[in-house]
């Protein structure tokens, strides 16, 4: 027994990642005056929430060894409904639309979870299929970017507190806190880790693993629909492809954060660092005028490095 090292969960990786973030910020601040301007700070605070919501949801799914490829389509759906149902601009129609969006996203999340949990189907296949279906519906409703989101709606997200912090960033802080509590201080959260660690054994311990899985996919969809709302508010319109990039981006943020596909290890603290790293890199590359093509290459490389790093840590 003596030689074995008893491990507790540590934040060593997390500290390392925050250090990395500090270095990025420091270097960029030195080399770019734009980077440290107030306008860019607001810009970054604006960019974090849409990626953050969807990545937080994705984290829960990946913790259970699943994956949710339908989040992008849910986001697009969310922008489209926002842009096509609020034409009168009154609060009531805003309320109805948001309600409808949440309902649809929960429905698709439920379908994902149902197939994956009850029929034991591959998450990859199921969510790809629902994603394709939803994308089809999206294009049917709004074949090209357009529509209009009234200010009653956009103000809900873009109003700036003290002229700096957009409301959407405040929502992000709240949602992050809520999900942190959910993961660490509720049995549902602990059961997510248990299911990811060993589903069969979790079941034997009396956990209703199917419920956990369905719940996780519903939450992921819900988070994605919130991301879509933020995007719609920013664009003042809808776009059937608005969410496309976010599927991979959300997975990348989770992986960079250090949550692995092995399940049961990681969490949204980790994902937070992934979100910040991704946002900062995109922001800096834009500031330096790097073409989006190169940015894609870089994102891919970063994901690869993150994957290699986690493989070596096994």
């Amino acid at each position, binding site marked *: *027994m*003596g*030689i*074995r*090292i*008893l*491990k*507790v*969960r540590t934040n060593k990786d997390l500290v390392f990642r925050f250090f990395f973030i500090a270095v990025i910020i420091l270097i960029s601040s030195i080399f770019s005056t734009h980077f440290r301007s107030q306008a860019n700070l607001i810009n970054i605070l604006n960019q974090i929430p849409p990626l953050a919501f969807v990545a937080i949801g994705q984290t829960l799914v990946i913790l259970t060894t699943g994956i949710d490829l339908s989040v992008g389509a849910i986001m697009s759906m969310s922008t489209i409904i926002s842009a096509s149902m609020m034409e009168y601009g009154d609060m009531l129609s805003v309320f109805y639309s948001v309600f409808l969006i949440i309902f649809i996203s929960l429905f698709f999340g439920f379908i994902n979870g149902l197939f994956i949990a009850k029929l034991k189907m591959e998450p990859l296949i199921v969510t790809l299929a629902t994603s394709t279906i939803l994308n089809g519906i999206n294009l049917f409703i709004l074949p090209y970017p357009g529509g209009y989101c009234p200010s009653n709606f956009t103000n809900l997200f873009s109003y700036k507190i003290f002229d700096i912090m957009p409301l959407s960033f405040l929502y992000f802080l709240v949602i992050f806190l809520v999900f942190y*509590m959910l993961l*660490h*201080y*509720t*049995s549902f959260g*602990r*059961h997510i*880790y*248990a299911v*990811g*660690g*060993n589903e069969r*054994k*979790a079941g*034997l*311990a*009396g*956990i209703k693993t199917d419920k956990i899985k369905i719940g996780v996919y519903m939450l992921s969809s819900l988070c994605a629909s919130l991301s879509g709302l933020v995007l719609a508010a920013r664009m003042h319109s809808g776009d059937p492809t608005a969410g496309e990039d976010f599927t991979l981006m959300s997975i990348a943020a989770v992986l960079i954060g250090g949550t692995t596909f092995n*399940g*049961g*290890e990681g969490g949204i603290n980790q994902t937070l660092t992934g979100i910040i790293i991704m946002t900062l890199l995109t922001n800096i590359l834009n500031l330096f005028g790097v073409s989006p093509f190169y940015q894609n290459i870089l994102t891919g490389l970063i994901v690869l490095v993150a994957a290699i790093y986690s493989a070596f840590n096994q």
Partner: protein
Amino acid sequence: MSENYLLEMKNISKNFPGVKALDEVSLNLYPSEVLGLVGENGAGKSTLMNILNGVFPPDEGQIIVDGREVRFSGPLEAQRNGIAYIHQELNLIDELNIRENLFLGRELKKKFKLLDIKKMREQTRLSLKKMQLDVDPETLVGSVSLTIKQLIEISKALMLSASIIVMDEPTSSLTDEETEILFGIIEQLKTQGKGIIFISHRIEEIFFITDRVTVLRNGKLIGTKSTKETTYDELVEMMSGKEVEKRFFKESSNIKEEILLEVSNLYGGEILQDINFKLKKGEILGIAGLSGSGRTELLESIFGTFKVTKGEIRINGNKYRPTSPKKAINKGIAYLSEDRENKGLFPDFNVFKNIIVTKAEKDIKSSKVKKMKPYVNELINQLNIATPSLEVEIRNLSGGNKQKAILARWILARMNVLLVNEPTRGIDVSSKIEMYKLLYKLTKREIGIIVVSSELPELLAICDRILVMYEGRINACFDREEFNKETILKAMWKKSELPEKEKSHGY
């Protein structure tokens, strides 16, 4: 009388497609009693316990717990009724810490349904203390040893206020000293009025810990005996149903003079230090030691899966530097891992493929593989491997036969050094004897064998020499004439004072 029973299982029968798994088996358990449940593999022990645990219902028969008849719909309901089944493969989740595992599925909550982590941590600490475990409740279960896992599992059972605790081969992967800790706990449980059903292949343990023994064979109840009034021979006979050779005695040894393997000044990882020994052709060399003494690491360092930092290994006089299993196999070194299910077998491949795989990799063309079938068949006959055919997937064989199939693989590939780790773990008594015979037979082919085992009687029975390891060093060496259980045990527990001279010339 019957109201005194904690548990009564009456005339339980169970049919599986094509098999009568249990035929009118009865079993009963008093409070403050350890009941041994023994039988060869396939005798119906697990089926009976699974029925008790509600995994599947019996076709016929009654289960009476605390005087009332019950029928459980699943393990959870059994748990709620005071039955805890500690599986051989423990039911803990490696990714969670001890506290989370103990409270999994029944977490304590405070206001707003939030978890009461403080309280759970406190209770965890208390129950670990009861087990005399000095571990942080936040320790990840994946990082603790099997004994601790075992004890955590027992803590869990106690927390659920289980009155009946079923332990399925709890000691199969524990060393002697760890087993002793476990037995101490079992004694404690007894004084608390718990009833314990103890399943084990190790007959010595049955005699040590149980009050009565129930013997099953081929799904039938053979009898229940008071442990004090039965004998080793009687139990083995009841289990196997025939007069078998109960113990293995090695008549003579086949040691040749040539040295097959020579290890000098070997250092490895952070454990192994200054290891020196020689293995002769036809010799069986045993390695004893507590878990963590470096036994397994020594074997793995020779096989090339554990990092060697310093030292020299010679095979047939030629220098050999272990870097990978492939190289080791090319040099004729084979390793039978203690974890045969995961590290030794391709469970979904058939018997033939499993046996041929190394040979095929080494030196035959793929077109000629089929022609090997007669040889493999002959080998199967020689080693007495019970399999319906070559085409059966190997996971369907019993533990002993799987182990023999792996041996066959190495024999076919003409290995001359066999490194064997826990050769009889989880194998029933008669298969054990067969395994011993087989190893002995192999020495006639000028094969040298190194056996690591936590069962000292096993080493005493089959080895020509025993090296005792302690904290990564070779602490003592005994020739067959000097074998003595007490002295060897002592050497396992305490650093021995060897004169420097003797140390330097090696064993």
